[in-house]
């Protein structure tokens, strides 16, 4: 059915369409990055990822393969209303595989198009649990979902930190609410009834939230959200005299959390992530090489999700190496892909979720985010 449309369209209008044609044969191999690059929605995060993708492709092309792989960037600005035009462009450009979409919102708006076009896509970063429940066949993600992280964080707060009173706050964003809800229920399941409030990351005055926390006198606070908002909240909590442990998530895993909150205020804050890409254990030579290569190529340190972008690209490149060049063949290959990436073991479940769901914990020590290890095992002082 869709084929008929595409064919009809191609017949009538395809005169100028660039190099479409039968699959196989002399077709270009193109990996597309689809996600934020500019604008208001954490463009740095997107650049971390696209750099990871570019690094992997450049390294592959440097090995002089039979056919070099092209790289294209589609900038969605992280805006679910802008994303469809970019995804459709990628489809029109006949890309072979996609790294992205980066955020959950734009994924909801555009993965159905990729699905219909049968283009394999791997998101390095979209963590909304709902994404995995759509029965999509061409969709994958290289990061565990919010439910996994929320469960681990909830257990961590109650069991590892031994908190008797917990306060859960989120920044009312697409990704944060689901995560904070999961932490809330996980904490509840562990026998502690938390309290709850929300902040607006665009606002600056969080005093009513701070006052609620002060009145509740919690042992631990979980903040679900991004560093922009988390930093102001953390600062105002500490300035307001709240000393409870502050636990947050991958959205806050950025040095800007410390910069914004102040070194003194941020000290000791705990941040979890399904990634381990900031300050990873350098005893793994592959990881050390990745960190080094990245720095050489882009003259800055790799950041959150760089490693995931790199691994996602390598999974696709593995398919190319195995001689899979059509979108369907690449997708079939991804079902079986299994290798040790720099971020984690890369192996997908049948529904596209990553198999290994380890959550890692970081802590602000002397003003820097320090890698602690597997969140279910670490014991921060």
């Amino acid at each position: 059915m869709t084929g008929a449309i595409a064919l009809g369209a191609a017949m009538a209008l395809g005169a100028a369409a660039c190099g479409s044609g039968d699959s196989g044969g002399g077709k270009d191999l193109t990996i597309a990055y689809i996600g934020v690059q500019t604008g208001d929605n954490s463009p740095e995060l997107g650049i971390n990822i696209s750099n990871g993708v570019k690094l992997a492709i450049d390294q592959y092309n440097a090995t002089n393969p039979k056919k070099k792989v092209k790289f294209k960037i589609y900038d969605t600005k992280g805006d679910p209303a802008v994303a469809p035009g970019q995804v459709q462009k990628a489809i029109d450009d006949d890309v072979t595989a996609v790294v992205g979409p980066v955020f959950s919102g734009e994924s909801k708006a555009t993965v159905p198009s990729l699905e219909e076009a049968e283009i394999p896509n791997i998101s390095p970063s979209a963590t909304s649990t709902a994404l995995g429940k759509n029965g999509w066949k061409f969709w994958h993600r290289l990061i565990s979902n919010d439910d996994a992280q929320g469960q681990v964080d909830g257990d961590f707060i109650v069991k590892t930190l031994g908190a008797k009173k917990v306060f859960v706050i989120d920044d009312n964003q697409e990704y944060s609410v689901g995560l904070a809800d999961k932490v809330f229920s996980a904490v509840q399941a562990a026998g502690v009834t938390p309290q709850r409030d929300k902040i607006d990351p665009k606002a600056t005055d969080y005093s009513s939230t701070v006052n609620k926390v002060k009145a509740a006198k919690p042992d631990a606070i979980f903040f679900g959200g991004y560093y922009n908002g988390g930093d102001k909240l953390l600062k105002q909590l500490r300035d307001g005299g709240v000393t409870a442990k502050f636990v947050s998530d991958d959205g806050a895993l950025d040095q800007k959390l410390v910069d914004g909150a102040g070194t003194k205020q941020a000290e000791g804050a705990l941040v979890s992530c399904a990634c381990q890409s900031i300050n990873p254990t350098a005893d793994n030579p592959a990881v050390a090489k990745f960190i080094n290569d990245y720095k050489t190529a882009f003259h800055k340190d790799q950041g959150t999700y760089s490693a995931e972008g790199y691994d996602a690209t390598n999974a696709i490149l593995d398919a190319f190496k195995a001689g899979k060049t059509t979108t369907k063949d690449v997708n079939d290959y991804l079902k079986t892909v299994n290798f040790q990436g720099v971020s984690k073991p890369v192996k997908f479940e049948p529904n596209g979720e990553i198999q290994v769901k380890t959550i890692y914990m970081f802590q602000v020590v002397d003003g820097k985010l320090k890698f602690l290890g597997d969140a279910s095992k670490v014991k921060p002082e």
Partner: protein
Amino acid sequence: MSDNTNKTANTAGWRGALSGPLEAVRTHWDRAPGWERWAVYVLLIIGALFLPYEGLAPVMSPESAWSTILFYPIGIYVLLALGLNVVIGYAGMLDLGYVAFWAIGAYTMATMAVKHGIGFWPLLPCGIVLAAVSGVILGAPTLRLRGDYLAIVTLGFGEIVRKVAENTNWLGGTRGINNIPHPPSHEGVWFAGVDLFTYKIRDARPYYYLLVAVIVLVVIFSKRLEASRIGRSWTAIREDEDAAEIMGVPTFKFKLLSFATGAAIGGAAGVVFAAKTSYVAPANFPFLLSATILAAVVLGGAGNIPGVIVGAFLVAWLPERFRGLADYRDLAFGAILVAMMIFRPEGLIPSRQRKAEMAEGGGGMGHMGAEIDTSGSEAEVGSR
């Protein structure tokens, strides 16, 4: 239709005596016979139908899918600008929360279709009516306020709608609502390689044609309104509300009507948008979009339909065409708004009547500072 248009255009014609090629075309157009007008209308529609032609894509949008951006942002902006034009251009009221009505239309489609399984076609009138009703609910108490208070209240309303959508679980909160069904398909009606009524995920062209149909209807509707007693009342209100009231125009009633009409058009745009994108979230409806649509209307020429369409097209298309400069888009909009108000407040393609009003310092909400102008310049100090 042509008869009515003819009359107003002619009565407007004597005022704008300025020359220039645009004016020459304008003058010719005013005197053009009915068949010529219809020929142009038909040609324009045919032009719109062939706009998604792929051969245009490398020129028009090398970096985005041309037919997709023809739907959003271009088509949607045009429709929204036409709706806002009824409020600003015709009645001279400033609505700074216009996207709220678009949001109401989109959320009507999203909630009713997803939760209650109602189809697109019954929901289109529903969304329109609901948006119009919220226009009335907002307008009824606030339209008695002075014009600039109205601007701030509508701004507040726009933010309230967005925040309520963010904070209400039933509306999906910030996560929004996805898997909104597409309109029902009727396969097999082909036009230029497009299966016209097959509404699937990827091909944006059927949606674009749907949008063109809505836009054509809205244009006809606006033209009819403009030429009717209602339109003349709006003009009277815009030029001098007090005088209009004294002359027996029920100003409040007509202001409300203008507000509701604008809202209804926004609602229609919302329903169509939600049906295409299948995902709506509060982040789709920021204040900046209201400002952008306002810029489109003002840039093109408030009160003049061709002007408004061109304005919206430019505002939507230029940042997509020159994506590298997109970061400077809003900077340019801001500067353009100020410069336009100083040098060409009537817009790029103004209506003649509107231009004359602007030159006199009218055109909505009375004069600013005219009463304290001491420069003795050429400006006519109004009677107030």
